[in-house]
């Protein structure tokens, strides 16, 4: 099939039809911050951290396909500002306290705050009241730390095929649930495979027993599994 040519940050690049801007940029060493994207899973464009500019419009790089003669900018001042605003809202929406978090030092949200130079949160905090669900024998979910990226939902559905995780409700009450909103320990569809744990970018889904700053995620796990399946 014909190759596509496009420009990203002034570089003339080629892409295959159907490839996303994120894929093309990443292949060419252009870093675009992401959060809901996870290699091996379908992209859904949920977090908006990967926004880039195409003819004056902001679009998510993870779900926008490359097109011929497209001119893409990934790091204008406006883009940086919007990414930071999105990130601030993610922080304000949950209860993210790095200092005693099990994922401190190994958290994608925290890394993004550093990368995007988010020095403070300028929107009011929502301080939601959530309950930690530690009813599963090995894992727990702390919704205070959930950014609703949906990586757990997709890993569970697309790769494990268990469909234990799903979203419930909308807007500021949206949250991830197990089965029909039962405690995780009672979710019969759960195979305890642990893919959600490794896919979750923060300390929201974690191993029980991990103490402060001990949790480290194997976020490449899903991509490795998917790649092997493709080779079967």
């Amino acid at each position, binding site marked *: 099939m014909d190759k596509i040519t496009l420009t990203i940050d002034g570089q003339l690049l080629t892409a295959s039809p159907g490839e996303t801007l994120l894929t093309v940029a990443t292949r060419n060493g252009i870093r675009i911050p992401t959060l809901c994207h996870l290699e091996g899973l379908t992209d859904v464009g949920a977090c908006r951290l990967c926004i880039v500019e195409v003819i004056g419009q902001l679009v998510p790089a993870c779900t926008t396909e490359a097109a011929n003669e497209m001119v893409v900018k990934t790091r204008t001042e406006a883009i940086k500002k919007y990414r930071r605003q999105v990130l601030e809202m993610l922080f304000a929406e949950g209860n993210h306290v790095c*200092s*005693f978090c*099990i994922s*401190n030092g190994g958290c994608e949200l925290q890394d993004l705050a550093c990368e995007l130079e988010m020095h403070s949160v300028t929107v009011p905090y929502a301080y939601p009241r959530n*309950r*930690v669900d*530690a*009813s599963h*024998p090995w894992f*727990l979910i*702390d919704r205070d730390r959930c950014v609703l990226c949906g990586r757990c939902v997709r890993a569970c559905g697309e790769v494990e095929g268990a469909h234990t995780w799903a979203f419930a409700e909308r807007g500021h009450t949206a949250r991830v649930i197990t089965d029909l909103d039962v405690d995780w*320990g009672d979710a019969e569809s759960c195979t305890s495979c642990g893919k959600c744990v490794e896919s979750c970018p923060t300390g929201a889904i974690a191993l*029980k*027993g*991990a*103490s*402060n*700053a*001990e949790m480290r995620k194997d976020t490449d796990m899903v991509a490795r599994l998917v790649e092997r399946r493709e080779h079967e």
Partner: protein
Amino acid sequence: MEKQIHIEPVTRIEGHAKITVFLDDAGDVKDTQFHVTELRGFEKFCEGRTLWEMPGLTARICGICPVSHILASAKAADAILAVRIPKTAEMLRRMMNLGQYIQSHALSFFYLSAPDFLLGWDSDPALRNVVGLVQANPDLTRKGIRLRAFGQEVISRLGGKRVHPSWAVPGGVNAPLSKDDHQWFVENLPECKDTIRETLDLFKSSFDCEARGVLGEFSSMYMGLVAPGGKWEHYDGLIRIVDQDGSIVVDGHDPSRYYDIIQEASEPWTYLKFPHYVPMGYPGGMYRVGPLGRVNVCESFGTPEADAALEEFRATTSRCSGKVFDYHYTRLLEILASIERMELLLADERILDPHVRAEASINELEGVGIHEAPRGTLIHHYKVDENGIIEKANFIVSTGHNNLAMNMAVKQIAQKYIAKGNITEGILNRIEGGIRAYDPCLSCSVHAVGQMPIQVNIVDADGALQQTLTQE
């Protein structure tokens, strides 16, 4: 007409505090109140969190003694997992606690308190701090600073992070001791021992009796943990309480049932509660903890040099010293004992064993963790649900145990040095010194070390501000 004198903030202690002196019509001291005006509501924050997070979460109670909370918390969690932690893990936790003693006591002595009694109570306030101390005695001050740095380095090397090590975990510790760190400890201990010997000698030769009496003397009971044989203990052990003569009031009490003998009263004018010995009620059941408490309850340190120094100390006072000033003396004794204990731990090859963590799930729904923090007995008490979520947390912090005593010390000094409404800076500083002797850590934002402005408000009975004295 009655007057109120406010002294705030108390300088050179950690956290925020305020003192009110109530004068009677004649201008003499009627009563005093030592207020702790900060409330951080930590017990509430913990509810709903997981047990495994508690060491790191409670470490945030205090920037000065995070290690103490981490250890008490990890011990409470051990009890809930119902595990006996590996021997090496216990040795390493002890090692860290001793490091904490050295750094905390050295901070208290060299940075916060020595300026008063080595430079003089009435010396220039601008220089009555560690800077003035460096000018007056550069060699010893430098050594004191290095001594504290050693304690910090022990914590840092073990915990991987100086202030909030996330290293003690439910079931043990999360990393064994490396050979390099072991060697570093062994190589650096002798200098520490020399420094503490020298400091003790100087202290013994230079403190005058006036200074020793200046901070007050009163009788109270003392509480601390002791090891079998009544030996000084800092990490485990059973609760012992002695009276002002050293006679045993309670011995061998199971620490996990602390609430049988200790309860907390509260007063509307302060956020710090008043723990007291239950059979004697409130406020009669006053006891003191910390260096003086531990030294008063124990028979011996169990290590040769510290025991020799203890004997010398006891020769200068009764079996149980009631002098507030002796907190400083016993702090130095404890630094020496800590160094000797470290030597013993490092000489035992088991300290390098890689097995340092016992894994278990929730096996008990309640657990108490108790140990001797530098400032005194520290208690963490948790109740969890089946999944390890905290339902209730109770902390009795070292400073709390001394609350009654600090109020008493303030009152005594005020009565001695304020007459007919007449106050001078030197007197105010003695009141502060009376509190500082307990090295209180008031819940616990870190105040800058050194002199800070003091404001004294003299308020009459109608609440009108009569006079304001400030010290820049």
